Protein backbone atom coordinates (compact mmCIF):
# COMPACT_ATOMS: atom_id res chain seq x y z
CA UNK A 1 0.00 0.00 0.00
CA UNK A 2 2.80 2.39 1.00
CA UNK A 3 4.60 1.64 -2.28
CA UNK A 4 1.39 2.33 -4.19
CA UNK A 5 1.01 5.74 -2.51
CA UNK A 6 4.65 6.53 -3.31
CA UNK A 7 4.03 5.46 -6.90
CA UNK A 8 0.95 7.67 -7.27
CA UNK A 9 2.85 10.59 -5.79
CA UNK A 10 5.79 10.13 -8.14
CA UNK A 11 3.46 9.80 -11.16
CA UNK A 12 1.66 12.99 -10.11
CA UNK A 13 5.01 14.79 -9.76
CA UNK A 14 6.01 13.62 -13.26
CA UNK A 15 2.69 14.74 -14.77
CA UNK A 16 3.10 18.16 -13.17
CA UNK A 17 6.69 18.46 -14.42
CA UNK A 18 5.61 17.35 -17.90
CA UNK A 19 2.84 19.96 -17.89
CA UNK A 20 5.10 22.80 -16.65
CA UNK A 21 7.78 21.87 -19.20
CA UNK A 22 5.35 21.54 -22.10
CA UNK A 23 3.73 24.84 -21.14
CA UNK A 24 7.08 26.62 -21.06
CA UNK A 25 7.69 25.42 -24.65
CA UNK A 26 4.04 26.01 -25.68
CA UNK A 27 4.76 28.02 -28.84
CA UNK A 28 7.16 25.42 -30.14
CA UNK A 29 4.54 22.73 -29.48
CA UNK A 30 1.82 24.83 -31.04
CA UNK A 31 3.90 25.37 -34.20
CA UNK A 32 4.65 21.66 -34.55
CA UNK A 33 1.03 20.78 -33.94
CA UNK A 34 -0.27 23.22 -36.54
CA UNK A 35 2.26 22.09 -39.17
CA UNK A 36 1.42 18.41 -38.59
CA UNK A 37 -2.28 19.16 -38.79
CA UNK A 38 -1.86 21.21 -41.97
CA UNK A 39 0.33 18.53 -43.56
CA UNK A 40 -2.28 15.86 -43.02
CA UNK A 41 -5.22 18.11 -43.86
CA UNK A 42 -3.88 18.89 -47.36
CA UNK A 43 -2.70 15.33 -47.87
CA UNK A 44 -6.20 14.17 -47.04
CA UNK A 45 -7.70 16.62 -49.50
CA UNK A 46 -5.49 15.16 -52.23
CA UNK A 47 -6.00 11.47 -51.44
CA UNK A 48 -9.65 11.67 -50.29
CA UNK A 49 -8.90 8.69 -48.03
CA UNK A 50 -10.88 9.12 -44.80
CA UNK A 51 -9.26 6.17 -42.94
CA UNK A 52 -5.90 7.83 -43.41
CA UNK A 53 -6.85 10.37 -40.74
CA UNK A 54 -7.04 7.76 -38.00
CA UNK A 55 -3.98 5.94 -39.36
CA UNK A 56 -2.05 9.18 -39.35
CA UNK A 57 -3.22 9.88 -35.77
CA UNK A 58 -1.94 6.47 -34.69
CA UNK A 59 1.38 7.08 -36.42
CA UNK A 60 1.68 10.47 -34.72
CA UNK A 61 0.98 8.81 -31.36
CA UNK A 62 3.75 6.26 -32.08
CA UNK A 63 6.14 9.11 -32.96
CA UNK A 64 5.44 10.76 -29.60
CA UNK A 65 6.02 7.54 -27.67
CA UNK A 66 9.03 6.20 -29.62
CA UNK A 67 10.99 9.41 -29.30
CA UNK A 68 9.93 9.89 -25.71
CA UNK A 69 12.41 7.91 -23.58
CA UNK A 70 15.43 8.60 -25.81
CA UNK A 71 14.36 12.23 -26.11
CA UNK A 72 14.13 12.54 -22.34
CA UNK A 73 17.40 10.69 -21.78
CA UNK A 74 19.16 12.84 -24.35
CA UNK A 75 17.65 16.11 -23.07
CA UNK A 76 18.37 15.27 -19.43
CA UNK A 77 21.94 14.22 -20.23
CA UNK A 78 22.49 17.52 -22.02
CA UNK A 79 20.92 19.58 -19.26
CA UNK A 80 22.67 17.57 -16.54
CA UNK A 81 19.62 16.27 -14.69
CA UNK A 82 19.91 12.67 -15.86
CA UNK A 83 22.28 11.61 -13.06
CA UNK A 84 19.80 12.97 -10.51
CA UNK A 85 17.36 10.21 -11.47
CA UNK A 86 20.01 7.68 -10.48
CA UNK A 87 20.56 9.38 -7.13
CA UNK A 88 16.97 8.69 -6.18
CA UNK A 89 16.14 6.19 -3.46
CA UNK A 90 13.23 4.96 -5.55
CA UNK A 91 13.73 1.91 -7.78
CA UNK A 92 14.83 3.15 -11.23
CA UNK A 93 12.14 1.11 -13.09
CA UNK A 94 9.48 2.88 -10.97
CA UNK A 95 10.85 6.29 -11.98
CA UNK A 96 10.89 5.37 -15.66
CA UNK A 97 7.41 3.86 -15.39
CA UNK A 98 6.15 7.13 -13.90
CA UNK A 99 7.83 9.06 -16.74
CA UNK A 100 6.18 6.71 -19.23
CA UNK A 101 2.72 7.18 -17.66
CA UNK A 102 3.17 10.96 -17.72
CA UNK A 103 4.15 10.73 -21.40
CA UNK A 104 1.17 8.53 -22.28
CA UNK A 105 -1.07 11.05 -20.55
CA UNK A 106 0.39 13.88 -22.62
CA UNK A 107 0.42 11.86 -25.86
CA UNK A 108 -3.24 10.87 -25.37
CA UNK A 109 -4.28 14.49 -24.88
CA UNK A 110 -2.37 15.61 -27.98
CA UNK A 111 -3.64 12.75 -30.13
CA UNK A 112 -7.26 13.08 -29.07
CA UNK A 113 -7.08 16.82 -29.79
CA UNK A 114 -5.58 16.10 -33.22
CA UNK A 115 -8.21 13.48 -34.06
CA UNK A 116 -11.02 15.73 -32.85
CA UNK A 117 -9.75 18.49 -35.15
CA UNK A 118 -9.61 16.00 -38.05
CA UNK A 119 -13.21 15.07 -37.27
CA UNK A 120 -14.36 18.71 -37.04
CA UNK A 121 -12.74 19.46 -40.40
CA UNK A 122 -14.37 16.39 -41.93
CA UNK A 123 -11.17 14.41 -42.51
CA UNK A 124 -12.43 11.38 -40.57
CA UNK A 125 -15.79 9.82 -39.79
CA UNK A 126 -17.17 9.73 -36.27
CA UNK A 127 -17.65 5.95 -36.39
CA UNK A 128 -13.89 5.46 -36.62
CA UNK A 129 -13.41 7.43 -33.42
CA UNK A 130 -15.21 4.73 -31.45
CA UNK A 131 -13.83 2.81 -28.46
CA UNK A 132 -11.88 0.68 -30.95
CA UNK A 133 -9.14 3.24 -31.33
CA UNK A 134 -8.50 3.60 -27.58
CA UNK A 135 -8.55 -0.19 -27.29
CA UNK A 136 -6.03 -0.61 -30.09
CA UNK A 137 -3.77 2.14 -28.76
CA UNK A 138 -3.71 0.45 -25.37
CA UNK A 139 -2.56 -2.81 -26.94
CA UNK A 140 0.25 -1.28 -28.99
CA UNK A 141 1.48 1.16 -26.29
CA UNK A 142 3.65 -1.45 -24.46
CA UNK A 143 5.34 -2.34 -27.75
CA UNK A 144 5.96 1.29 -28.62
CA UNK A 145 7.51 1.83 -25.21
CA UNK A 146 9.63 -1.28 -25.71
CA UNK A 147 11.06 0.31 -28.86
CA UNK A 148 11.39 3.61 -27.01
CA UNK A 149 13.30 1.97 -24.15
CA UNK A 150 15.54 0.13 -26.64
CA UNK A 151 16.49 3.41 -28.34
CA UNK A 152 16.67 5.15 -24.93
CA UNK A 153 19.19 2.55 -23.75
CA UNK A 154 21.29 3.08 -26.87
CA UNK A 155 21.10 6.83 -26.24
CA UNK A 156 22.76 6.37 -22.83
CA UNK A 157 25.73 4.74 -24.57
CA UNK A 158 25.81 6.47 -27.98
CA UNK A 159 24.47 9.84 -26.74
CA UNK A 160 22.88 10.87 -30.04
CA UNK A 161 20.29 8.58 -31.60
CA UNK A 162 18.24 11.16 -33.49
CA UNK A 163 19.22 9.46 -36.75
CA UNK A 164 17.82 6.13 -35.51
CA UNK A 165 14.55 7.73 -34.38
CA UNK A 166 14.20 9.32 -37.83
CA UNK A 167 14.72 5.97 -39.54
CA UNK A 168 12.18 4.25 -37.26
CA UNK A 169 9.57 7.02 -37.53
CA UNK A 170 9.83 7.28 -41.32
CA UNK A 171 9.91 3.50 -41.62
CA UNK A 172 6.69 3.30 -39.60
CA UNK A 173 5.08 6.04 -41.69
CA UNK A 174 5.72 4.33 -45.03
CA UNK A 175 5.47 0.69 -43.95
CA UNK A 176 2.34 0.84 -41.79
CA UNK A 177 -0.05 1.05 -44.70
CA UNK A 178 -1.03 4.66 -44.06
CA UNK A 179 -0.49 5.80 -47.63
CA UNK A 180 -0.12 2.56 -49.55
CA UNK A 181 -2.04 -0.68 -48.99
CA UNK A 182 0.08 -3.50 -47.58
CA UNK A 183 -0.72 -5.88 -50.44
CA UNK A 184 1.01 -3.52 -52.86
CA UNK A 185 4.34 -4.22 -51.06
CA UNK A 186 6.74 -7.02 -52.08
CA UNK A 187 6.27 -10.16 -49.96
CA UNK A 188 9.38 -9.64 -47.74
CA UNK A 189 8.41 -6.05 -47.05
CA UNK A 190 4.90 -7.19 -46.09
CA UNK A 191 6.43 -9.56 -43.51
CA UNK A 192 8.51 -6.73 -42.04
CA UNK A 193 5.51 -4.43 -42.09
CA UNK A 194 3.43 -6.88 -40.05
CA UNK A 195 6.07 -6.80 -37.29
CA UNK A 196 5.43 -3.08 -36.78
CA UNK A 197 3.00 -2.27 -33.93
CA UNK A 198 1.32 0.57 -35.85
CA UNK A 199 0.58 -1.71 -38.83
CA UNK A 200 -1.22 -4.11 -36.53
CA UNK A 201 -3.14 -1.25 -34.95
CA UNK A 202 -4.23 0.18 -38.31
CA UNK A 203 -5.25 -3.27 -39.59
CA UNK A 204 -7.24 -3.94 -36.43
CA UNK A 205 -9.34 -0.83 -36.94
CA UNK A 206 -10.84 -2.39 -40.04
CA UNK A 207 -11.18 -5.99 -38.95
CA UNK A 208 -10.54 -7.16 -35.43
CA UNK A 209 -10.49 -10.76 -34.19
CA UNK A 210 -9.58 -12.50 -30.92
CA UNK A 211 -6.69 -14.27 -32.67
CA UNK A 212 -5.35 -10.92 -33.80
CA UNK A 213 -5.68 -9.61 -30.28
CA UNK A 214 -3.44 -12.33 -28.79
CA UNK A 215 -0.94 -12.08 -31.60
CA UNK A 216 -0.65 -8.30 -31.31
CA UNK A 217 -0.46 -8.53 -27.53
CA UNK A 218 2.36 -11.11 -27.67
CA UNK A 219 4.27 -9.10 -30.25
CA UNK A 220 4.00 -5.91 -28.21
CA UNK A 221 4.91 -7.57 -24.92
CA UNK A 222 7.98 -9.08 -26.63
CA UNK A 223 9.06 -5.61 -27.74
CA UNK A 224 8.54 -4.33 -24.21
CA UNK A 225 10.58 -7.15 -22.67
CA UNK A 226 13.39 -6.62 -25.16
CA UNK A 227 13.32 -2.88 -24.58
CA UNK A 228 13.54 -3.20 -20.78
CA UNK A 229 16.40 -5.71 -21.05
CA UNK A 230 18.32 -3.52 -23.48
CA UNK A 231 17.79 -0.35 -21.44
CA UNK A 232 19.13 -1.78 -18.19
CA UNK A 233 22.00 -3.53 -19.95
CA UNK A 234 23.07 -0.21 -21.49
CA UNK A 235 22.66 1.54 -18.13
CA UNK A 236 24.95 -1.01 -16.45
CA UNK A 237 27.56 -0.65 -19.21
CA UNK A 238 27.40 3.15 -18.84
CA UNK A 239 27.98 2.89 -15.09
CA UNK A 240 31.02 0.67 -15.64
CA UNK A 241 32.40 3.02 -18.31
CA UNK A 242 31.59 6.04 -16.13
CA UNK A 243 29.57 7.80 -18.84
CA UNK A 244 26.06 7.69 -17.38
CA UNK A 245 25.51 11.45 -17.35
CA UNK A 246 27.99 12.42 -20.08
CA UNK A 247 26.90 14.01 -23.30
Amino acid at each position, binding site marked *: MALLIVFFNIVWNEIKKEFFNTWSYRWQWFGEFVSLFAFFFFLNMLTQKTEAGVAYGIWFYSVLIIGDISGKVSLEMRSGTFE*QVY*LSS*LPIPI*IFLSKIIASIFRAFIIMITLLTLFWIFGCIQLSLLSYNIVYVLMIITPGLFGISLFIGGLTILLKDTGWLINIVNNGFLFLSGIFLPLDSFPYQLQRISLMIPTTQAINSLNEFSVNDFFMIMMLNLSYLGLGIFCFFLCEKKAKIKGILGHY
Partner: protein
Amino acid sequence: MERVKAINLTKNFGNRSLFGSVNFSFRAGEIIGISGKNGVGKTTFIKLLCGLIYSDSGQILINGIDARKNRTKWMEDVGTLLEGSRSLYWRLSALQNFIYFAGLKKIFGNEAKVRAEKLLQLFGLWDVRNEKVETFSFGMKQRLALACSVAHAPSIVLLDEPTSGLDTMSSQILENYIDVLSKENKTVLLASHDHEMIARISTSRLTIENGVINRVF
Protein backbone atom coordinates in the same frame (compact mmCIF):
# COMPACT_ATOMS: atom_id res chain seq x y z
CA MET B 1 30.95 2.23 13.28
CA GLU B 2 32.24 3.73 10.05
CA ARG B 3 29.75 5.67 7.96
CA VAL B 4 31.62 4.90 4.75
CA LYS B 5 34.05 2.08 4.28
CA ALA B 6 35.77 0.91 1.11
CA ILE B 7 37.50 -2.42 0.87
CA ASN B 8 39.97 -3.10 -1.96
CA LEU B 9 38.23 -0.69 -4.29
CA THR B 10 39.57 -0.81 -7.84
CA LYS B 11 38.62 1.26 -10.85
CA ASN B 12 40.22 1.25 -14.29
CA PHE B 13 39.18 3.11 -17.42
CA GLY B 14 40.59 1.05 -20.27
CA ASN B 15 44.34 0.70 -19.65
CA ARG B 16 44.37 3.60 -17.21
CA SER B 17 44.22 2.57 -13.57
CA LEU B 18 42.47 5.23 -11.48
CA PHE B 19 42.29 3.43 -8.15
CA GLY B 20 44.23 0.28 -7.42
CA SER B 21 42.77 -1.70 -4.53
CA VAL B 22 42.28 1.23 -2.14
CA ASN B 23 40.91 1.04 1.40
CA PHE B 24 39.50 3.89 3.46
CA SER B 25 36.84 4.69 6.02
CA PHE B 26 35.06 7.81 7.27
CA ARG B 27 33.24 8.30 10.54
CA ALA B 28 30.22 10.32 11.63
CA GLY B 29 30.80 14.05 12.06
CA GLU B 30 33.92 14.11 9.89
CA ILE B 31 34.43 16.69 7.14
CA ILE B 32 36.85 15.29 4.61
CA GLY B 33 38.36 17.56 1.99
CA ILE B 34 39.50 15.81 -1.20
CA SER B 35 42.22 17.45 -3.23
CA GLY B 36 44.35 16.52 -6.19
CA LYS B 37 45.28 17.70 -9.67
CA ASN B 38 42.82 17.71 -12.55
CA GLY B 39 42.10 14.21 -13.82
CA VAL B 40 43.35 12.29 -10.78
CA GLY B 41 39.86 11.00 -10.11
CA LYS B 42 38.20 13.29 -7.54
CA THR B 43 34.85 13.29 -9.35
CA THR B 44 35.15 9.57 -10.07
CA PHE B 45 35.78 9.02 -6.36
CA ILE B 46 32.59 10.93 -5.49
CA LYS B 47 30.62 9.10 -8.18
CA LEU B 48 31.85 5.72 -6.93
CA LEU B 49 30.58 6.60 -3.47
CA CYS B 50 27.15 7.67 -4.75
CA GLY B 51 26.70 4.76 -7.17
CA LEU B 52 26.85 6.62 -10.47
CA ILE B 53 29.98 4.67 -11.40
CA TYR B 54 30.52 0.99 -10.63
CA SER B 55 33.90 -0.16 -9.34
CA ASP B 56 35.66 -3.00 -11.15
CA SER B 57 36.15 -4.85 -7.88
CA GLY B 58 35.99 -4.25 -4.15
CA GLN B 59 33.21 -3.27 -1.85
CA ILE B 60 31.66 -0.07 -0.50
CA LEU B 61 29.89 -0.25 2.85
CA ILE B 62 27.49 2.57 3.72
CA ASN B 63 26.55 2.51 7.41
CA GLY B 64 27.76 -1.08 7.51
CA ILE B 65 25.66 -2.31 4.58
CA ASP B 66 27.06 -3.45 1.24
CA ALA B 67 25.90 -0.56 -0.96
CA ARG B 68 25.46 -2.51 -4.22
CA LYS B 69 23.26 -5.05 -2.45
CA ASN B 70 20.89 -2.45 -0.98
CA ARG B 71 20.59 0.43 -3.41
CA THR B 72 17.54 1.98 -1.69
CA LYS B 73 19.33 2.30 1.65
CA TRP B 74 22.45 3.57 -0.15
CA MET B 75 20.55 6.40 -1.81
CA GLU B 76 18.63 7.21 1.38
CA ASP B 77 21.88 7.62 3.28
CA VAL B 78 23.74 9.67 0.67
CA GLY B 79 23.09 13.15 -0.74
CA THR B 80 25.23 14.22 -3.68
CA LEU B 81 25.91 17.56 -5.32
CA LEU B 82 27.43 17.32 -8.80
CA GLU B 83 27.78 20.25 -11.20
CA GLY B 84 25.06 21.99 -9.18
CA SER B 85 23.75 24.49 -11.69
CA ARG B 86 23.30 21.74 -14.30
CA SER B 87 21.37 19.44 -11.94
CA LEU B 88 18.17 21.46 -12.18
CA TYR B 89 15.25 21.97 -14.54
CA TRP B 90 15.83 25.54 -15.65
CA ARG B 91 12.30 26.02 -16.98
CA LEU B 92 10.77 25.18 -13.59
CA SER B 93 10.71 27.43 -10.54
CA ALA B 94 12.95 26.85 -7.50
CA LEU B 95 10.04 25.44 -5.52
CA GLN B 96 8.89 23.18 -8.38
CA ASN B 97 12.45 21.84 -8.67
CA PHE B 98 12.67 21.21 -4.95
CA ILE B 99 9.28 19.46 -4.80
CA TYR B 100 10.20 17.29 -7.80
CA PHE B 101 13.62 16.23 -6.47
CA ALA B 102 12.24 15.72 -2.96
CA GLY B 103 9.69 13.37 -4.58
CA LEU B 104 12.53 11.35 -6.09
CA LYS B 105 13.71 10.92 -2.49
CA LYS B 106 10.27 9.77 -1.32
CA ILE B 107 9.30 13.06 0.30
CA PHE B 108 5.89 14.24 -0.82
CA GLY B 109 3.03 16.59 -0.01
CA ASN B 110 3.19 18.71 3.13
CA GLU B 111 6.44 17.21 4.30
CA ALA B 112 8.11 18.31 1.05
CA LYS B 113 6.69 21.83 1.47
CA VAL B 114 7.92 22.08 5.08
CA ARG B 115 11.40 20.95 4.07
CA ALA B 116 11.36 23.30 1.09
CA GLU B 117 10.62 26.25 3.35
CA LYS B 118 13.32 25.26 5.82
CA LEU B 119 16.07 24.62 3.27
CA LEU B 120 15.23 27.39 0.82
CA GLN B 121 15.24 29.86 3.71
CA LEU B 122 18.54 28.48 4.95
CA PHE B 123 20.06 28.97 1.49
CA GLY B 124 18.52 32.42 1.00
CA LEU B 125 16.16 31.36 -1.80
CA TRP B 126 12.74 31.45 -0.17
CA ASP B 127 11.86 34.89 -1.52
CA VAL B 128 12.56 33.77 -5.10
CA ARG B 129 10.98 30.34 -4.76
CA ASN B 130 8.39 30.96 -7.51
CA GLU B 131 10.87 32.34 -10.04
CA LYS B 132 12.20 30.19 -12.84
CA VAL B 133 15.69 28.79 -12.33
CA GLU B 134 16.80 30.14 -15.73
CA THR B 135 16.67 33.63 -14.20
CA PHE B 136 18.98 32.65 -11.31
CA SER B 137 22.67 33.47 -10.99
CA PHE B 138 25.20 30.62 -10.93
CA GLY B 139 25.52 30.87 -7.15
CA MET B 140 21.75 30.70 -6.65
CA LYS B 141 21.52 27.61 -8.86
CA GLN B 142 24.35 25.98 -6.92
CA ARG B 143 22.60 26.70 -3.61
CA LEU B 144 19.29 25.39 -4.93
CA ALA B 145 20.96 22.22 -6.24
CA LEU B 146 22.47 21.66 -2.80
CA ALA B 147 19.08 22.17 -1.13
CA CYS B 148 17.57 19.59 -3.51
CA SER B 149 20.34 17.07 -2.92
CA VAL B 150 19.94 17.17 0.88
CA ALA B 151 16.11 17.28 0.85
CA HIS B 152 15.99 13.80 2.39
CA ALA B 153 18.39 14.72 5.26
CA PRO B 154 21.07 12.13 4.37
CA SER B 155 23.70 11.06 6.88
CA ILE B 156 26.47 11.35 4.25
CA VAL B 157 26.83 14.40 2.00
CA LEU B 158 29.10 14.31 -1.07
CA LEU B 159 30.00 17.62 -2.67
CA ASP B 160 31.91 17.93 -5.93
CA GLU B 161 33.47 21.37 -6.37
CA PRO B 162 30.71 23.05 -4.35
CA THR B 163 32.31 26.51 -4.31
CA SER B 164 33.54 26.57 -7.90
CA GLY B 165 32.42 29.86 -9.48
CA LEU B 166 30.65 31.09 -6.34
CA ASP B 167 30.86 34.62 -4.98
CA THR B 168 31.91 35.30 -1.39
CA MET B 169 28.36 35.39 -0.04
CA SER B 170 27.34 32.08 -1.62
CA SER B 171 30.60 30.45 -0.47
CA GLN B 172 29.97 31.68 3.05
CA ILE B 173 26.40 30.30 3.07
CA LEU B 174 27.77 26.97 1.91
CA GLU B 175 30.56 26.88 4.49
CA ASN B 176 28.06 27.71 7.23
CA TYR B 177 25.85 24.88 6.05
CA ILE B 178 28.74 22.39 6.08
CA ASP B 179 29.40 23.49 9.66
CA VAL B 180 25.74 22.82 10.54
CA LEU B 181 26.01 19.35 8.95
CA SER B 182 29.08 18.55 11.03
CA LYS B 183 27.32 19.61 14.22
CA GLU B 184 24.43 17.31 13.25
CA ASN B 185 27.00 14.48 13.17
CA LYS B 186 26.78 14.01 9.39
CA THR B 187 29.73 12.93 7.30
CA VAL B 188 30.74 15.39 4.58
CA LEU B 189 33.13 14.72 1.71
CA LEU B 190 34.01 17.63 -0.51
CA ALA B 191 36.21 17.58 -3.57
CA SER B 192 37.65 20.98 -4.34
CA HIS B 193 40.55 22.93 -5.78
CA ASP B 194 40.02 25.53 -3.09
CA HIS B 195 42.82 24.48 -0.72
CA GLU B 196 42.18 27.37 1.64
CA MET B 197 38.58 26.37 2.16
CA ILE B 198 39.55 22.72 2.65
CA ALA B 199 42.12 23.73 5.25
CA ARG B 200 39.59 25.98 6.96
CA ILE B 201 36.63 23.64 7.33
CA SER B 202 37.74 20.03 6.99
CA THR B 203 38.66 17.77 9.88
CA SER B 204 40.92 15.72 7.63
CA ARG B 205 42.26 15.85 4.10
CA LEU B 206 42.45 13.20 1.46
CA THR B 207 44.81 13.44 -1.48
CA ILE B 208 44.61 11.36 -4.63
CA GLU B 209 47.75 10.78 -6.64
CA ASN B 210 48.66 8.03 -9.11
CA GLY B 211 45.76 5.86 -8.00
CA VAL B 212 46.77 6.04 -4.36
CA ILE B 213 44.69 7.71 -1.68
CA ASN B 214 46.49 9.34 1.24
CA ARG B 215 44.76 10.59 4.35
CA VAL B 216 46.18 13.56 6.26
CA PHE B 217 44.73 14.32 9.71
